[in-house]
């Protein structure tokens, strides 16, 4: 078993050396598709060998013909298995950041530029695999890979195998991708932590909010934007919901500050911040974030939640975990 693990590691390193890192979209060309018989294929080979010996021994020509036909079927299956991967285009298609402890979801899009459907493709990475899926001719399918996370920061998906055993399961062809896909891992929100009082005076936590004094332009509507700011005239023109933005003095809005969170543990304090951000967003509030060296002005909406969570995920982050 140790030898096998070592062999496996050496193979992986060799493949990484000869292929180098991958860019966004990778066409699976012949040079990067590997193929070996499966256990079933080995058993099939043994069966053929026994049939060959029997037929030769008894000088049975039809037995030989049967053996050779099956052997040739195996060869055809090998070629077909290899072809089943060839010329596919694999593309990293983003990832969904999780809270630490949940699974990061990486997406790999595989498109089939050929005329034949590609059957039973698998995307495999250490400890996780997407169920086999087929990609119709000219179509694209998205494989999701769920990678468990332990801690805040980020996780890197460094190696994906796109594999297939189609047809017959006698051979397994695979291609190795080194996409270096990153996914942020948000701190796990602390259990119930009351938000700081919303007062502008709070440790200078207030900031100028864009007021309603001077019209500054139009921006996309986000849920939570006050309806009276919607540019109805623009909507009538273009069917797009836009809201008017104003600049000017306004009342101070909460800005969550790391320094406001007591405690000795950075991670625990970040978790409290995460809790506040999640709760504030859930309530449809407008909020900002201040970390040492980074400030995010108050905004409402999903994008703001993402931005803030990403900022605390990145803040003084440990080295990424490699999946």
């Amino acid at each position: 078993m140790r030898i096998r693990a070592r062999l496996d590691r050496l193979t992986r390193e060799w493949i990484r050396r000869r292929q180098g890192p991958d860019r966004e979209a990778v066409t699976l060309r012949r040079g990067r598709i590997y193929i070996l018989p499966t256990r079933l294929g080995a058993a099939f080979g043994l069966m053929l060998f026994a049939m060959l010996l029997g037929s030769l021994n008894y000088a049975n020509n039809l037995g030989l013909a049967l053996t050779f036909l099956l052997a040739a079927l195996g060869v055809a299956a090998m070629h077909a298995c290899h072809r089943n991967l060839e010329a596919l285009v694999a593309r990293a298609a983003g990832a969904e950041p999780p809270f630490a402890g949940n699974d990061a979801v990486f997406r790999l899009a595989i498109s089939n530029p050929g005329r034949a459907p590609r059957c039973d493709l698998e995307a495999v990475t250490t400890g996780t695999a997407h169920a086999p899926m087929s990609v119709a001719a000219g179509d694209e399918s998205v494989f999701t890979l769920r990678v468990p996370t332990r801690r805040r920061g980020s996780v890197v998906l460094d190696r994906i195998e796109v594999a297939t055993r189609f047809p017959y399961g006698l051979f397994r062809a695979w291609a190795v991708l080194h996409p270096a896909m990153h996914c942020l891992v948000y701190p796990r929100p602390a259990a119930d932590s009351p938000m700081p009082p919303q007062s502008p005076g709070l440790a200078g936590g207030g900031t100028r909010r864009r007021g309603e004094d001077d019209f500054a332009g139009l921006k996309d509507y986000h849920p939570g934007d006050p309806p009276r700011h919607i540019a109805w005239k623009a909507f009538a023109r273009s069917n797009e919901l836009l809201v008017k933005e104003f600049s000017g003095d306004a009342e101070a809005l909460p800005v969550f500050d790391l320094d406001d969170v007591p405690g000795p543990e950075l991670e625990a304090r970040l978790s409290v911040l995460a809790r506040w951000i999640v709760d504030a967003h859930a309530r449809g509030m407008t909020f900002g974030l201040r970390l040492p060296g980074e400030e995010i002005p108050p905004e409402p909406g999903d994008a703001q939640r993402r931005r803030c969570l990403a900022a605390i995920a990145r803040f003084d982050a440990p080295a990424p975990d490699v999946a």
Partner: protein
Amino acid sequence: MRLPPMSPEREAGFRRLAWTTAGLVAALGPHLLRLQLWVSAFVLAACAWRLVAERRGWPMPSALVRGLIAAGVTVGVVLGYSTITGLDGGTALLALMSALKLLETRNARDHTVLIFIGWFLCLASFFYAQDVATAAWVLPTVWLLAAALLVVSRRGAEGPALPPFRTTGTMLLKAVPVALVLFMFFPRIAGSFWGAPSAERALTGLTEEMSPGDISDLTLNDVVAFRVRFSGNPPPPPQRYWRGPVLNEFDGYTWYRGQVQSIYRPKVAHRGAPVDYAVTLEPTGQQMLFALDMVENWTSGFAQQSWDFGLRTRKPVNAVIRYDARSYPTYRAGEYLSAALRNLSLQLPHSRNPRTVELALGMRGAAASDAAFIQAVLNLFREQEFYYTLTPPGLARDSVDDFMFNTRQGFCGHYASAFTTMMRAAGIPARVVGGYQGGDWNPVGGYLIVRQSHAHAWSEVWLSGEGWRRVDPTGAVAPERIERGIEASFAESDLLPGGLMRDSPLFWQANMLWDNLNAQWNDLIVQFDRTAQDELLLNLGFDDPGWQAFATALGIGLAVATGLLALWLAFEFRPRRTDPAAMAYRRFVGRLARRGIERTVGETPRDFAKRVRRLRPDLGTPALAITETYLRLRYEPAPTAADLQVLRALVAHFRP
């Protein structure tokens, strides 16, 4: 009773099981009638039960029950077949094991084991017969089993519904060139890796012993024993004596080949023109070969001629073999007979068949010479109330006495046995010769078919100054048997096989065509041996068909065949012709990507265009125009060429 519909998973499971079971039953097909009835019944019942159980969701039998069944059937095979290693016992065991495996089939691996067993059963049916009919059954079976493997090896739940039979069919077609090359150039070996193939399988045909009634049983069998192709004209029917086993030892009831053998081959002098021919012998499980009397030359290294002029191979004939031979119908053989062999040819069991011995001694005393005595015995058969019949009554322990004085109804074996006994009793060395007499001429292929129904037995006597002379006592009772064949002697009888066939010219014709097909098949495929391979290599221009020639031919052939396979696959998997609108749109997307605006997965063209407009208001108008034109080209029922030109022009001028 209506069954509730199955869940999709159970339906998929049922489908897999149905495919595997179908393949297995097809593979069992040729064996079902050959296997003992209980084996066939058990296997079929297991298949049926398993399908019903899967459909209704019954539980599988427990390990204990399965173990008990396994033990039971193994004991059954040992009792029924007395061995588990022979072809019959092995096939029975394989069939039973497949049935048992079926009772515990759950995952894909169990299914693949069943499919592999199915392929082995296909191989086993070729060990029984290599004729056209078997091949015609096995090929679709192999196909079906491979399709079943495709079904059980599918891993994706969804995906394109590939018809398994068709997909596997095209795969097999792609495989055919490789298989052909392997078949043609994979060197056949002479001899075998392990011991001589076991000969205990029950093959119809002559054996090296003969009891009363043996040959008449054989005569009911229409199976082909061998086919003969003559280089010239075939000899006339009365000369078509195909010598087989020569029987020297008699125990009063049964004739045996005997233990005493001599490698000494008496001299043969022949006169007249020889007959040259090639025999394609179906498997006999015996060591003897058949040749016209008197054979002089035969394919060297194949067989040896023993002192009784019979040809014997070193190993039992368990596959179709072919040999060339030259015979002289007119001959004088073995003028000198050693004392030991003379004694052997005079042996009679002590105090058996006393009345016959007494009769012979009396008749010899009355006859002037050995030749006159022989004639007297033949006259006895001819003139007294002796009947030639296919259904002779059973005989007592002293079979010759019982036949000569009680039943007086017999087939060729009875007459040969009685005649030889009388000769020996009178002091004339004699023996029984088994073989075939006659044959059906196949006008379609121009060859002679010798069937089991042509089995015959006659006598040979040794006369001083002349040597061994063939005497056929059956000729005295039923001369038409020798002149015109077995059918002529029993024209009224329905007992002979193929009675209907022989009466109807159409059936006769069809039968001859079918037999000719089998003969060609034998010559081309079944008999494709090392000699034929050497010839093929010589024809292909190799000077010396040694291993280098084989390696070269195999290498080049495989390269060409796999090349064809790869080409076919490359054609199947060729890229789609991209439509020009998509290409233009892709250029547009590419240009934006270089400016940092990338289209994300799943973003529709319209959404993308809106995003472009937001990010780069200056590009909004052309981006929207390109997108709308593109969408019109893609989704309008009848896109116009003008639209395509507009799209191309827009994209050409789009410089972000």
